[in-house]
């Protein structure tokens, strides 16, 4: 058992018998020794996690910056200035990838932010089956993404897929969900929203339940109708959480990769689902051009850093 392994490694048996606090004020040397020992123990507790952070987070972060301005040829690393950046920007797929990513983000916010909020408002009014509905929306979040995505691929199949069957039943024209360049991104967004909206819906719901009921009563006394109550009470009361969720979803959706990668192979018909992260993936793992991958990653990082900073500031306000 790793648990007991750690116990024996970090516990110093001598320290266990250390005397409790002494009433006599300790001398300077003694205080120093105690402080040192306290710090050694504390850093002993920290060291494992710090090493993991150092190797797998901090060092890669630095490396990301270095890689963006370097190139490796035959094992030789050399500085190339902005060459990687120009390579990336001159790539014909560059602007398309940003457009697609932006389209995904906008659609995903429409479906994945507005819909859960409205759903949460409605569910919050129910006096029955709230637990059931909560369970339902969160169920897909627990599925392995490969299972959900391949299931959607089956549902989207132009021949025997369930969706076209429904359209046929309604006498509507069948669609090439994933094969049609105009439809492929919305189809990916729909699948991604199904997979991920549960989290947002539950957080919205929790926020709504924190609104004091008197505010609605007061609004009614002022003669406010349903929509004015939503506009003047519900939204202002949940604004902070809504903003935090919005920022978090922007940050997450701008990094979309798995859903298009699995549904359309990443690029999709005429590159219609190539996203920025897919382009990074291609540079790194299809073309072995780590410099270009890092340069494009850096652009994404800079863009998202703005959103992250806003998030942190708002999060601090939430703490107070």
């Amino acid at each position, binding site marked *: 058992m790793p648990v007991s392994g*750690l116990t024996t490694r970090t*516990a110093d048996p001598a*320290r266990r018998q*250390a005397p*409790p*606090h002494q009433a006599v004020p300790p001398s300077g040397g003694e205080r120093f020794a105690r402080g040192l020992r306290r*710090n050694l123990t*504390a850093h002993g*507790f*920290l060291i*494992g*996690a710090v090493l993991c*952070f150092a*190797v797998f987070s901090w060092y*890669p*972060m630095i490396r*990301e910056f270095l*890689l963006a301005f370097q190139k490796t040829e035959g094992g030789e690393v050399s500085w190339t200035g902005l060459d990687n950046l120009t390579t990336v920007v001159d790539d014909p797929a560059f602007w398309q990838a940003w457009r697609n990513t932006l389209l995904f983000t906008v659609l995903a916010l429409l479906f994945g932010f507005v819909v859960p909020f409205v759903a949460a408002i409605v569910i919050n*009014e129910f006096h*029955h089956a*709230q637990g059931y509905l*909560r369970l*339902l929306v*969160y*169920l*897909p979040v*627990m*599925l*392995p*993404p*490969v299972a959900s995505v391949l*299931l959607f691929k*089956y*549902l989207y199949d132009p021949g025997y897929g*369930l969706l076209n*069957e429904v359209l*046929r039943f309604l006498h509507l024209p069948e669609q090439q969900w994933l094969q049609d360049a105009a439809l492929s991104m919305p189809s990916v967004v729909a699948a991604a929203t*199904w997979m991920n909206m549960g989290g947002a819906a*539950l*957080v919205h719901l929790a*926020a709504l*339940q924190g609104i004091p*009921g008197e505010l*609605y009563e007061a609004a*009614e006394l002022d003669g406010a109708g349903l929509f004015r109550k939503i506009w003047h009470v519900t939204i202002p009361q949940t604004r902070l959480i809504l903003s*935090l969720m919005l920022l978090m979803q922007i940050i997450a959706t701008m*990094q979309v990769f798995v859903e298009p990668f*699995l549904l359309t192979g990443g690029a999709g018909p005429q590159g219609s689902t190539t996203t920025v992260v897919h382009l*990074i*993936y291609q540079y*790194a*793992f299809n073309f072995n051009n780590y410099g270009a*991958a890092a340069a494009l990653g850096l652009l*994404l*990082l800079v863009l*998202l850093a703005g959103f992250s*900073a806003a998030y*942190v500031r708002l*999060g601090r306000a*939430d703490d107070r």
Partner: protein
Amino acid sequence: MSTRTLISPAQLARPRGKAVYWTVFTLVVTGFTLVFLGPLYWMISSGFKDSQEVIRTPPTLVPESFTPDNYARAWEVMDLSTLLLNTLYYAFGALAFQLILDVAAAYSLSRLRPVLGKAILGMMLATLMIPATVLVVPQYLTVLDVPVVERNLLNTPWVIWLPSVANAFNIFLLKRFFDSVPGELLDAAAMDGASPLRTLWSIVLPISRPILAVVSIFAVVGIWKDFLWPMLTLPDPAKQTLNVGIYSLSSGVPVNVLIAALTIASLPTLLLFLVFQRNIMSGLTAGGLKG
């Protein structure tokens, strides 16, 4: 729920209010059931259809050619037992490492407060600002040749376990919880001569069960759902996770067998969810707001 919400109880009590309530309620419950359970039903039932029926149009709502054999074939052809065991091994190994190292670190930062502790915490939380997908490339290059020890971690469980410890969100949640533990309790333990480890083990951990449950569930689910990282770092088919293994074999097996495999892959986390719903939902609202 007794708290007052958007619609006043008086309004609901009126006949018109009641009618609207029940109409909307029925519509929403039916709609949600169709949208969220429908695909799952389709997955489970299609897994029971034979290879003809599964691609038949119009499709059958209830499988006519009841073929439970698909599940057995999926299990064998896709070697699901290996994939499942691998995934369990990675998930619970990562859980153990996260629990031990992240709990120890959060406790140290919260209670032992070493020199430079604040700076270390700041640097850990700063990693939340870096988009995870951007770091994948340099992280991949790092595990190919880990600095100092000069090891290649590809195709070893370490490549999943160790990076999972570098989870600032865990540190944040745990530290915040430990901060809320009453100081008198810990002082009393120190007076009795308990070492920091003893205090952590006998006093702090027992009261931290709720947060430990949240961290544990998210640790396991996180590994279970991860795709890009295990795809890159565990290329050996014998070492792959369920997600990656099923994906890489997906084009080579008949549709009904594949769908049966998807059902099998989904079951563990679905069961986990049904059992630990309460913890998961509370963790979501505790943590969800603070990414």
